[in-house]
């Protein structure tokens, strides 16, 4: 549900990811958009064009920060320099919450720049929750963790992915960024019913949702964010909204990016799937 402690009691509607090909359109036409999600790392340089554009966007729009490199599941603790830069950016954007992924991605200071899936073990629950708590405490903002798409399952796992997610968010006392496309992709790659996943998530902790397109290959599906959202993913989104109520919703489109209007129109389809009372709100 929206406007909870996991969203800093802020109520957000349907937004889209802020991407470079749309900068000019947004700054010149100033379209009505409820909010933009930014990839934090793209604005964590110290100066230059990215921050100059962001400042112009912030004059007109609400922005929420989404990260891709905190790697909550790393065995190493979060990097302090990274956290300081991230916190400085949160002061600039006044983001009501910060999200990043339930994954790992670097070892001994060497980065994969990928969102690698966790083995669903109790040790991993403890390590990940410790890191999420540390980030949350440092940033002094609610943190939402996002479920990732995955292409591999591990012998070490002791529980399902949704059980792992629930254990982590309970132990860390944090929110969830529920990516329904990622659930769909993983369900197809691993052969589980995606509705089981959505039905298992604690609705009160869902701060935000993600929607996106993906690419089907012969033997697996890849989370590519380069297509419109397909109907089965919209159906999962509808189920999630029925359970969680009106939740801040964000469409991601990161490759083969079409016009701003096309992306925004695709995002606004989400309104069709909101519960009647929520859609009218």
């Amino acid at each position, binding site marked *: 549900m929206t406007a909870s402690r996991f969203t800093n009691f802020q109520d957000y509607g349907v937004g889209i990811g802020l991407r470079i090909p749309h900068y000019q359109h947004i700054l010149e036409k100033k379209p009505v958009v409820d909010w933009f999600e930014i990839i934090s790392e793209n604005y964590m340089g110290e100066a230059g064009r990215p921050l100059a554009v962001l400042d112009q966007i912030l004059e007109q729009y609400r922005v929420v920060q989404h990260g891709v490199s905190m790697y909550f599941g790393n065995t190493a603790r979060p990097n302090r320099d990274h956290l300081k830069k991230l916190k400085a950016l949160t002061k600039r954007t006044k983001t009501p919450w910060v999200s990043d992924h339930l994954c790992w991605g670097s070892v001994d*200071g060497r980065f994969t720049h990928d969102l690698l899936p966790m083995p669903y073990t109790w040790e991993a629950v403890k390590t990940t929750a410790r890191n999420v708590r540390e980030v949350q405490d440092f940033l002094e903002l609610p943190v939402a963790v996002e479920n990732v798409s995955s292409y*591999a399952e591990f012998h070490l796992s002791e529980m399902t992915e949704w059980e792992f997610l629930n254990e982590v968010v309970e132990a860390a006392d944090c929110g969830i960024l529920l990516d329904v496309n990622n659930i769909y992709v993983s369900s197809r790659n691993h052969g589980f019913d995606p509705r089981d996943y959505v039905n298992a998530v604690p609705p009160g902790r869902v701060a935000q949702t993600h929607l996106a397109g993906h690419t089907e290959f012969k033997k697996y599906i890849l989370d590519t964010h380069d297509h419109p959202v397909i109907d089965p993913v919209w159906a999962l989104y509808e189920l999630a909204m029925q359970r969680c109520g009106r939740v801040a919703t964000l469409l991601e489109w990161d490759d083969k990016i079409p016009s701003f209007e096309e992306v925004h129109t695709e995002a606004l389809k989400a309104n069709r799937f909101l519960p009647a009372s929520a859609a009218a709100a």
Partner: protein
Amino acid sequence: MDMSTLARFQAALAGAIMRPLGPGETMRREGHAVAAEFVKPNARLAAKDRLQIYNQQYWWRLLGSFGDDFGGLAAVLGERRFERLAIAYLDACGSASWNLRDLGQGLSAFIVAHPELLGSHGPLARDMAALEWARVIAFDAAEWPRIDPVEFASRRPSRMKLGLQPYLTLLELQYPVDRLLQKLKQSENAAASNARSSGAGSRKLRLHAKPAASPVHLAIHRSELVVYYKRLQPAAYHLLSALRAGETLENACGMAFGDEAVAADQIAAKVQQWFSAWTAFGWLCEKPAIMTKKPAPLACPLC
């Protein structure tokens, strides 16, 4: 202390994922044992095939990002040699930063240590790599408060120390790679525009003729959010380099003009002209405490 199970898992998988791809862009045999130990197969994919997806994504992502940052170097070396260099560099140094922007931070040092990877294009390739890394810095590095010209004029040169903006890089090069890169980008833009009209074409930069050696001194900087290359007279380059090294203005001038038989009044006029331009560009700044630290070496922090 023994590694935890999670640490052992992450070290093993990261090793397999970051190992260069084998023939046909498939995972090398060394990764198969890691896959068998940790990854479950399913009805459609063997364990090694599932791990291979991550192995491929890693290399395609990093090579793509590296190619975006060093398109000029790729044009100088040619596609195949550039790919060999990129794989060797990324295999040896990897990415030591959460930010992909930093991927090329150790490249200049790496190619000095591995001239065999550059073939007959060594000096030109080294110059191009240095220029393209300077572009990355100029794009988004910090800008400190500019020096106040009135304050500046009132100080004694014998005691005055100045800082240079972090986004500014000074390069002494054997080849005019600034012009070369501009030409390459122009032909890329033309090709892209033709490709749009024809619906096909490559965006890769292509070098048609190796330029003649001709030493240049460059300042790569940012103005109004745009990256520029400014050519400098050798003495101006040496003066700025000496200031960056922490010399007083008086010493820096001495070092810049040390061997030249130029009259003192001419030197004064030149220096005045240069400083007028440099203050207008905003290159000069107070040297904050953080900048008095010895700069980090331009080398891969991992190797």
